[in-house]
């Protein structure tokens, strides 16, 4: 168990104001951290900070043990542009290797092999030459997951990955992510889906303008904030 990210009393936001503050949490290798929060609670700002794209206003975010923001494989939310984008699965997965190439302009044998192996690992090798826009939502997420794994193999950061998927595909994706986590990859997942969050995650970070909870999932279930949130979620879905 080694620490990969340490966040100490960090405040995040833009020039005109703080979005969220008082963030204190640690991600160890092999952790499965779920970040919960309402819309506008600063989740997307936190993602940018973790990826090293937006420096914190105050406090500290530290990447430890030779681990850097570049070692995080990122699975962003889908954009409208992608829905009618002509690209083969192979092209999308290969583009994850770009960060390993520096200024070298073309894919070499090593990158092609990495892409192929990752596709095999996620069970999408048969889709290699299929068109991305013609895949089902679940298959598309697998492709993007493969791309993220090509970019970084130690930690994955998933931004609401099950949005728009049917229940069956959601379960499949959660199981796949859990499998990757068991193989030693740390997972950070931003989610609305609290039921799955408490089922799969080892740790929960709950934010809303400021940090409400950070700790083990079992502790979260017994905490006042956790109880309240789960109850509210249950009522909404009745």
């Amino acid at each position, binding site marked *: 168990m080694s620490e990969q990210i340490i966040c100490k009393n960090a405040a995040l936001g833009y020039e005109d104001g703080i979005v969220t503050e008082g963030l204190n949490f640690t991600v160890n290798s092999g952790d499965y951290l779920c970040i919960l929060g309402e819309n506008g609670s600063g989740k997307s700002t936190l993602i940018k900070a973790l990826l090293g794209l937006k420096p914190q206003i105050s406090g500290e975010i530290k990447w430890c043990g030779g681990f850097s923001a*570049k070692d995080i494989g*990122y699975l*962003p939310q889908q954009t409208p542009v992608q829905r009618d984008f*002509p*690209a*083969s699965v192979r092209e999308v997965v290969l*583009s994850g290797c770009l960060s390993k190439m520096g200024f070298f302009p073309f894919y070499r044998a090593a990158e092609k092999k990495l892409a192929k192996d990752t596709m095999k690992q996620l069970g999408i090798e048969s889709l290699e030459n299929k068109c991305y826009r013609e895949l089902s939502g679940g298959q598309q997420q697998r492709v993007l997951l493969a791309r993220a794994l090509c970019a970084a193999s130690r930690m994955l950061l998933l931004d609401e990955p099950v949005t728009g998927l049917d229940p069956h595909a959601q379960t499949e994706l959660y199981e796949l992510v859990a499998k990757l986590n068991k193989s030693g990859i740390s997972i950070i997942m931003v989610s609305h889906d609290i039921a799955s969050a408490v089922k799969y995650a080892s740790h929960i970070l709950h934010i809303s303008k400021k940090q409400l909870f950070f700790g083990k999932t079992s502790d979260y279930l017994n905490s006042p904030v956790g109880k309240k949130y789960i109850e509210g979620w249950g009522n909404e879905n009745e």
Partner: protein
Amino acid sequence: MSELISTLQYYFSYPFVRYAMIVGLLVALCASLLGVTLVLKRFSFIGDGLSHVAFGAMAAAAVTGITDRMIIIMPVTVLSAVLLLRTGKNTKIKGDASIAMISVSALAIGYILMNVFPVSSNISADVCGSLFGSTSILNLKSGDVWLCFIMSAIVLIFFTLFYNKIFSVTFDESFSKATGINSDLYNLMIAVVTAVIIVIAMNLVGSLLISALIIFPALSAMRLFKSFKSVTICAAIISVVCAGLGIILSILLSTPVGATIVAADLAAFLVFSGISTVCARK
């Protein structure tokens, strides 16, 4: 048939016709390569806006009486490309509105300048020429051809070297940012190269019709092909074939060059759409 061929042979014995052909094919090739990215990034409107800016810049350059008008047109258009890209993101006037504003202003000011400081006695012919590129392509000198040749080479090299990164930035900007690709820089380069192509293409098809050269081949190719590479290659081929066909037809039928090329592009688009509809039904 042999009559047609001998007519063509007769025309192609003139160097200016050969120049027109070379410039036409090169411009068509570059425009189509970039077009794929621009269409997919929803940047088609930038091409349109820039072409109007180039028109305004050309009118201003004509007023100053400089012989080499590129000195003014090129920097103004490139600068506008950079500004348009900036305004596209976070300003009070939204991207599409600001483009519309800039393009009509450039058109209006260009037209005013041309009327207040007439360069020749026939103003409407001048305006028509720069908007629709009626005859200017046949006035190219070998210097213009060389300039076009060098610019095209730069565009082609840029595109080949950064092909994979352009794909990544086009497909998913947030992911490429996260993996350390400077996507803002690539967006900027794409905008600058677009500006360069538009300025060169202005001689060929005129400023009103340039967008067609950029978007049509990409749209046609996307109807049938399903990977980024095949779309790019197909767009380049469609564009070059249509440009060649358009130039030859315009010679044989004595129609305006630019408009004929665009008509050929439209025809190709309709054919590809037809094929894709038929394939989808099967």
